[in-house]
């Protein structure tokens, strides 16, 4: 059937829509934002009952191109393994929505967007945003699409934080919530790694106090180093050893210099350089900050269970055994909180040596778990199979 949706400009960023025209978005920092642009992608069709929407929330370096070719890199969507015909998130069954987060750089308003008051890019005058702000913006998009209740909110890492926030803030609008490889608060260790990344960006002379846009430059080196440091945290020691070990890069022996002698160095440099091509350094500052500020229990007197009191949302949590960025024990804390309110919760830890990155990779156990959970829930919700 036809989507009863007012479609907007469909350009490089996918669909874009201007939200907050009538009433602005009240951010946690106190600033009112609006009108503002949100860029999003959709896959599949909203059914007549309007009950088959799956909102996919992306991670720090992700975007709305969850299952379609990325316009800048030409690579397949970041979760094409899970989203597609015959896969756990099947567009023949679900209406799948993924929006670029607030503060992002793929079409949704962020520090690189033009500030209507000055006519220049915001830079650091862009307000600091939180995970809850991102979710409020997504809720405005879902309102705009004419959808009352989501069948599922799903996401990994920072996407998982948004899933938890959705379930806590809008329990009546969420049927199932699937947080993957995430936590209810950002740990000291994770804040520390983010700070290294931010300092690398701000220490780059090309950063120019965040207004590099006006000088036609960008702190490439800083952002690349930030990405390199972060990328280490997405892997595991075992995965690094398996993939690279101490193998040398295109040479027989070390060069007694500071070239990328080792394959692991070459790999990280590549990760850093390619990231610069598609990501705004200031967006990196803002989004990492949003993650750092995330602490769901804080607004409930430190008791996480209170975030979910009386919830009817069905949860399925997934962690990965070798993920040391969002380790299983942090997921288990969420499970304990959900048990304390007798919530409907499933929790699976998947054995893998691939570290945090496992959520983006081909993990058959992940597919089996999500497939089983989602199709059982869809049956209960009365969503037909394709």
């Amino acid at each position, binding site marked *: 059937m036809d989507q009863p949706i007012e479609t907007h400009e469909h350009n490089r960023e996918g669909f874009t829509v201007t939200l907050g025209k009538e009433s602005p978005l009240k951010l946690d920092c106190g600033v009112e934002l609006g009108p503002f642009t949100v860029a999003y992608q959709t896959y599949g069709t909203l059914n007549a009952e309007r009950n088959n929407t799956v909102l996919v929330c992306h991670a720090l370096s992700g975007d709305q191109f969850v299952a379609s070719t990325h316009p800048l890199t030409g690579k397949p969507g970041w979760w094409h393994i899970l989203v597609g015909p015959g896969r756990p998130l099947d567009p023949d069954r679900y209406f799948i929505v993924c929006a670029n987060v607030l503060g992002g750089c793929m079409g949704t308003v962020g520090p690189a967007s033009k500030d209507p008051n000055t006519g220049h890019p915001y830079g650091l005058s862009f307000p600091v945003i939180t995970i809850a702000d991102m979710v409020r913006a997504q809720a405005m998009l879902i309102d705009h699409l004419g959808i009352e209740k989501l069948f599922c909110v799903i996401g990994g890492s920072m996407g998982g934080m948004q899933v938890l926030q959705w379930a806590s803030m809008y329990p009546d609008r969420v049927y199932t919530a699937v947080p993957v490889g995430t936590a209810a608060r950002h740990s000291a260790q994770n804040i520390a790694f983010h700070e290294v990344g931010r300092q690398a960006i701000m220490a780059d002379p090309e950063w120019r106090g965040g207004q590099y846009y006006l000088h036609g430059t960008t702190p490439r080196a800083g952002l690349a180093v930030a990405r390199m440091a972060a990328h280490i945290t997405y892997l595991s020691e075992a995965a690094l050893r398996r993939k690279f070990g101490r193998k040398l890069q295109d040479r027989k022996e070390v060069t007694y210099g500071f070239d990328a002698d080792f394959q692991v160095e070459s790999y990280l440099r590549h990760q850093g350089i390619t990231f610069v091509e598609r990501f705004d350094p200031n967006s990196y500052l803002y989004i990492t900050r949003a993650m750092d500020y995330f602490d769901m229990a804080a607004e409930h007197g430190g008791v996480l269970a209170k975030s979910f009191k009386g919830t009817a949302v069905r949860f399925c949590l997934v962690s990965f055994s070798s993920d040391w960025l969002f380790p299983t024990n942090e997921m288990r804390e969420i*499970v304990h909180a959900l048990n304390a309110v007798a919530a409907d919760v*499933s*929790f699976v830890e998947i054995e893998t040596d691939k570290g945090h990155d496992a959520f983006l990779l081909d993990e058959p156990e992940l597919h089996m778990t999500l497939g*089983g959970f989602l199709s059982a829930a869809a049956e209960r919700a009365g969503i037909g199979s394709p």
Partner: protein
Amino acid sequence: MTGAARSPAHGIEVQQTGFRVDLRLIADMIAPGARVLDVGCGDGQLLQHLTRNRDVTGRGIELSQAGVNACVGRGLSVVQGDADTDLRDYPTQAFDYVVLSQTLQATRRPRQVITELVRIGRHAIISFPNFGYWRVRMSLLTQGRMPRTPSLTHKWHDTPNIHLCTILDFTELCRDLGVRIDRHVPINSRGRVAPLLASNRLANLFGEQAVFQLSRRTDS
């Protein structure tokens, strides 16, 4: 049920329904539409039966990751967890029934586990192998070796069963804990309910395993 093809856990005889005999008894004790927590739910056989056929709202806790993943893949709400440590999270009287099948003897603190079960559920249903069973006694007496029976299949050095008890022991513990025994079903070696084993002493001798339904004593 597809359970007929499964090998019976702990070697206990499987009936024609495709169910481990204690699970069949447990399923019959549970009222339709009830809220059920299955502690140590394995691959979810009981939960799936109850959800499909008895309109039960089911949850499970399972220690083995393989069991949890299988359950969630089948659409059951199951978390990876440990009966010894994770029951305290659940609110009081959150469930109508809490089931602990063939797991009590593998817990580190059976006293606390039983106390938690009757706190979380209005009813607790527990099945366990009876160490007072005559073949267990005979095996130790005549062979001088650690007993192995159809419901106690492990060797002494690799058994998960660290707190085995007899029906009399269990009854005594319930009395000590102030827990009320609402039903008590001994099961004989052919995996059938033994109606003649009404007396505790006979049940303790001829019951290979037992299913107990307990509740928290309201006057204690």
